[in-house]
């Protein structure tokens, strides 16, 4: 053994890394050559490709679901940070400013803290329900993300009944809240769960009725088609074709996400933390995340249904064509034509450009040493290249610019949610229910009638709404 171990121990760190890599590389080459010669490898690759090609839908779904499940956590962190910071600004405070740049990592640290805390079950709790409730709430929130169209071609699953699926799965969350409220064996939790059930169920109604107008106009439940129906300038958004519906939807969505002023379910000054009173550790963290994921989802749905989703507020193609660019940009340059020259280009062009920039910078700012200017030139080059690529993508790949607009609208709505929380006091439970049943539901029905009448009349005139 010492035959191997002694020279190995003499090796430097780089050697210890490089030597095995060389060995692996050689072994792989051997395997590939043998497999190719024997004809096993082509067959294997062909088989895998066929298998993937046969059910690519499933593959796509799995990938999308994984990405969405992973993406919700940073989304929740982002929302929590927005809330902490904006409320602090409204309160004339500074807010989180210690961890990370401008305190952006404070919410992440909160998440870690929640992870590290003890996770206990109170005496007399209904253990299975108590344990399952957070998962139900969180999954109900996450699953609705599946049908949200982030950008053209960028969605979890293109469902024809996307809207229906959204409301159906979103309603499941109430079950989790009631489970939590009942199983905690605590009266605050019980009151909170009952309040959650009452308010959420009664606000499902105006929430669904308020979008019926859109469904009647577009004639589809598919969210992608609803978004594409709003293409063009921002005057084509349903916000301006369905103002009443938009208002009702926003109010009902606030209640659905149980945000101030409708956050009776965890009214801290009355029932200590509502259904989450007895929860601690990551179980509470799931409730906490679910609330903010819900906030994000309902903002996203408001953007999708009423603010044109990924559509730009104005048509940018004329501007681009004015500049001289026609989308998609047709690149009149074929790399293959260069042949071996391509290799030279790839190798030399960056070095040449960096050297050129270095010379310029060094001459312009002689106080810097050549090394410093070299580094700066390298960074500058990278910035230029990345910027060029992003611009190209934004112009040429429409989902990039679409995602940009979508996220912009969603974040604006989230900030408005937060501003409301910073400003408004909480309504009483009877005021909440009375508002839902006496005002929102009739208004939503009125909206439906008016929309239907308008559609019929415009049909007579041969136009469409």
């Amino acid at each position: 053994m010492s035959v191997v171990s002694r020279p190995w121990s003499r090796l430097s760190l780089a050697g210890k890394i490089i030597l095995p890599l060389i060995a692996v590389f050689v072994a792989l080459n051997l395997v590939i050559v043998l497999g190719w010669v024997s004809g096993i490898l082509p067959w294997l690759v062909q088989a895998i490709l066929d298998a993937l090609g046969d059910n690519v839908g499933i593959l796509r779904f799995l990938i999308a679901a994984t990405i969405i499940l992973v993406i919700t956590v940073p989304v929740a962190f982002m929302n929590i940070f927005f809330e902490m910071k904006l409320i602090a600004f409204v309160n004339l405070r500074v807010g989180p400013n210690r961890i990370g740049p401008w305190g952006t990592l404070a919410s992440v640290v909160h998440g870690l803290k929640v992870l590290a805390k003890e996770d206990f079950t109170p005496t007399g709790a209904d253990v299975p329900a108590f344990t399952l409730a957070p998962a139900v709430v969180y999954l109900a929130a996450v699953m609705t993300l599946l049908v949200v169209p982030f950008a053209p071609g960028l969605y979890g699953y293109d469902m024809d009944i996307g809207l229906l699926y959204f409301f159906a799965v979103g309603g499941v969350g109430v079950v989790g809240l009631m489970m939590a409220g009942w199983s905690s064996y605590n009266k605050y939790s019980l009151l909170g769960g009952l309040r959650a059930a009452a308010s959420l169920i009664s606000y499902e109604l105006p929430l669904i009725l308020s979008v019926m107008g859109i469904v009647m106009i577009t004639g589809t439940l598919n969210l992608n088609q609803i978004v594409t129906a709003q293409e063009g300038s921002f005057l084509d958004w349903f916000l301006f074709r369905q103002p009443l519906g938009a208002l009702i939807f926003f109010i009902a969505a606030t209640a659905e996400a149980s945000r101030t002023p409708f956050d009776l379910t965890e009214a801290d000054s009355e029932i200590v933390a509502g259904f989450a009173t007895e929860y601690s550790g990551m179980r509470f963290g799931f409730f906490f995340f679910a609330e903010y994921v819900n906030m994000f989802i309902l903002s996203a749905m408001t953007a999708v249904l009423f603010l044109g989703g990924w559509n730009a507020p104005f048509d940018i193609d004329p501007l681009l064509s004015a500049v001289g660019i026609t989308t998609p940009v047709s690149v009149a340059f074929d790399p293959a034509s260069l042949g071996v020259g391509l290799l030279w280009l790839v190798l030399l062009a960056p070095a040449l450009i960096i050297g050129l920039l270095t010379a310029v910078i060094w001459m312009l700012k002689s106080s810097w040493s050549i090394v410093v200017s070299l580094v700066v030139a390298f960074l500058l080059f990278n910035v230029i290249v990345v910027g060029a690529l992003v611009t190209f993508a934004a112009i040429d790949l429409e989902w990039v610019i679409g995602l940009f607009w979508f996220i912009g609208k969603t974040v604006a709505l989230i900030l408005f949610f937060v501003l409301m929380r910073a400003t408004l006091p909480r309504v009483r439970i009877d005021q909440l229910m009375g508002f839902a049943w006496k005002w929102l539901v009739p208004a939503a029905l009125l909206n439906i009638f008016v929309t239907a009448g308008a559609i019929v009349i415009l049909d007579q005139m041969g136009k469409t709404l």
Partner: protein
Amino acid sequence: MRTDRVPGLGIAKGLMFAFTQVFKPKVTIQYPEVVNDISPRNRGRLILLYDEAGTLKCETCFQCAAACPIECIDMGGVDTRNRYHVHWGPAEQYAERREESALRRSGRTVPDATFEPFARIDLGPVDAILARHGHRPRAALRIMDDVQAEYGYLPVAALQHIAHQTGAWYSELYGIATSYPHLRFETPGSHVVAICRCAQCTVAGGGRVLAAFREHLGTDIGGLSPDGAVRLESTDCRGESAGVPRVTVDGNVLPTVNATDAATIAAALRATVPQGQAA
């Protein structure tokens, strides 16, 4: 049409006001970097003053503790003659430390550091005396007289006991005991050898005499010989000693004393210790 009749207008106003606040300057004080100024009148800091020599100015006079209305100052120190540990605090606190519930709450016996320096004595007679005087602090002087008559001196532990039983501050009892000359804190040595320390007597050989007494009595000035028979004190000849060091035994002056006489004097004194007085 009144503006407060427009539904939602108040909410809109509030939201607009809140939005304008976002751009207002913030009032937070970033503590570790920015320290808020404390007014010179601030009383929130309890500090003991040091003089320019760097020694503590507090001489444990207990004035601050006696003035504290909520009895939150509980201090201990050494009296000005560096002999006895003096502790001050509300009597409830001492009782509280020994009370069963306190011990049970803390789950262990709470040591009372106050009594460590003092010899444990049998406090039965003290209880009897206190019962005779009805545990009345006004009778503190009479109680202490009886206690001294009982023990021959005034044990500090007994003094503590009186303080707990009557509720009088220990510091006050200590003040009474030190102000009355006939109350003493230790077994009196039957004989007192005093030596003058003035320059004249020292030149006349007082230094050697003192060294000899130190050696034979086994104690220094102000101290008691180990067997408790002889106390070595310092006196003042007021310039009356003519060329001989002034040495007094029990107050009467010895004619001439030199270092060699010290041994014999010490032995003679040791031989004649009155009965019933040594500790």
